[in-house]
């Protein structure tokens, strides 16, 4: 059974990636997950400088999902390179660094800093709904999306994934803009903007009022967008949003994803990626599918 997939020239041993922000840099998972078995680890968003993130509460549960307002708390690119890259290099997996920023210059600075680091991919997060000063603005405006993709691509030494926001009228427009800007792959979806109120205290639960909705509740929207984008651009698409089982992985791939990322499921069960990988294998062998690439985009 062939499980390996190729994203922008990088060969993953299987299509299972971790979704940025739900797996840290993998450290908290080593007792549950053999990192060597993952296709690729996508690390928590990292910026040019350390960011404190938002005040708590940052997390709230919703029906079949959760909302987070972490706000990209991160130690900054220098600390990241010093501590997290060497940690991850102990394992035989690919490394994608998710880049956060508040201005084009911020993003470019991180990509530049990573030029000579031994990592495999960059993921440009232009879709985080949890940082006021920027990020999301790039993700909802096609010309901004193209511009920032171009600027980062110019300095980047690794293939560039652009991560798309679902909070838009037409995601294919942004996808094409990123393609025109020179993206090597697209990933989607980031979180949907949502909120929850504490009706007893008569206030929003999250310190930031609203945050990003993820988990199985959003999967139908995510699969729809993956299908739309995969049919609108030539780039490989990385699908995510609510993946809980191997069957969910198959659904995303049939919709057009060349690889997938597991997010919220990691938080609910740290061994989720391993269970999911086993379920994918079981499905393929049950259906006598020899090469997982054969199902990519099979539903039309």
């Amino acid at each position, binding site marked *: 059974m062939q499980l390996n997939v190729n994203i922008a020239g990088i060969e993953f041993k299987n299509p299972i990636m971790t979704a940025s*922000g739900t797996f840290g840099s993998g450290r908290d998972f080593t007792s549950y997950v053999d990192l060597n078995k993952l296709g690729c680890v996508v690390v928590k968003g990292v910026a040019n400088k350390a960011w404190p993130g938002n005040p*708590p509460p940052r997390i709230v549960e919703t029906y079949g999902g959760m909302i987070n307002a972490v706000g990209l708390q991160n130690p900054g690119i220098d600390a990241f390179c010093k501590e997290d890259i060497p940690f991850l290099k102990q394992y035989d997996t690919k490394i994608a660094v998710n880049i956060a920023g508040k201005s084009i210059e911020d993003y470019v600075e991180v990509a530049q800093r990573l030029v000579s680091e031994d990592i495999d991919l960059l993921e440009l997060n232009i879709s985080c709904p949890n940082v006021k000063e920027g990020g999301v603005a790039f993700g909802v405006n096609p010309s901004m999306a193209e511009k920032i993709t171009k600027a980062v691509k110019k300095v980047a030494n690794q293939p560039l994934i652009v991560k798309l926001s679902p909070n838009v009228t037409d995601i294919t427009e942004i996808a094409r803009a990123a393609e025109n800007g020179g993206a090597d792959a697209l990933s989607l979806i980031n979180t949907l903007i949502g909120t929850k109120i504490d009706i007893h205290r008569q206030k929003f639960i999250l310190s930031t009022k609203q945050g990003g909705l993820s988990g199985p509740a959003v999967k139908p929207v995510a699969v729809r967008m993956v299908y739309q984008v995969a049919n609108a651009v030539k780039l490989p698409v990385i699908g995510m949003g609510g993946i809980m089982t191997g069957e969910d992985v198959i659904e995303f791939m049939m919709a057009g994803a060349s690889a997938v990322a597991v997010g919220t499921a990691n938080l609910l069960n740290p061994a989720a990626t391993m269970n999911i990988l086993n379920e994918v294998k079981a499905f393929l062998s049950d259906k006598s599918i020899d090469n997982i690439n054969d199902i990519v985009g099979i539903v039309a």
Partner: protein
Amino acid sequence: MCETMNKSRTVCKIISNELLTDQIFEMILECPEIVNEAKPGQFVNLYCRHLGRLLPRPISVCELNKDKGHLHLIYAIMGNGTKEFSTYNAGETIDVMGPLGNGYNTDTVSDIHLIVGGGVGTPPMVELCKQLKGRKIIVVGFRDNPYLVNRLKEYGEVYVTTDDGSAGFKGNVVEFLEKKSLKGSIYACGPTPMLIGVQAYADKYNLDASLSLEERMGCGFGACVGCVTKIASNNDAGFIYKKVCKDGPVFNAKEVLFSCN
């Protein structure tokens, strides 16, 4: 660090699940591995069966019965998840992960240990008292109905406070500490306003104090950076956010910055 990191979600048998007093339940679980490892002040994640409710409910270790491999948890019905737990019957199972977090340091040598619990911050004090060596003064505060008092009496002098004066001292635990001017190494767990009071009290009389904090959690094991609290730091901002689930839930009172500080 590795004490928080060994066990994934496991299915545990419910030995019993009984009402202690109004809205307060004790659940006893059979989980020898967790019991063997757990320390007072640590917690476990309990997961709901209602699969609309995905996130863990963190509940503190209340008592460890190593002989039987039984974990005692005491929880209050606060919302839909804990209400759901209260309907579970002995013989059924529940998904559990743990032990998680860093508990209290039980090696402290001190003339007097001052144990301060408020409301559902009281349960972790049982195992703590069991393991702490030396003289223990135990002050526990409740809105109205006290519970666990008799179990705590096995380990030291117990003083009860109630908001309505229906039992013990009328007032809160901090008022009681002041009134009796109790001194010692403080171990506290309870609602934030109480912890703020304890922090101020410890500061005023220069006492060591360990506070167990609460925050809404996404994972309970350090992955989501959801459950943070402000910890004093020398950086520009004057603080960094640390994770309650992994760096805590027990912190040194000196370093905790409550948002109204």
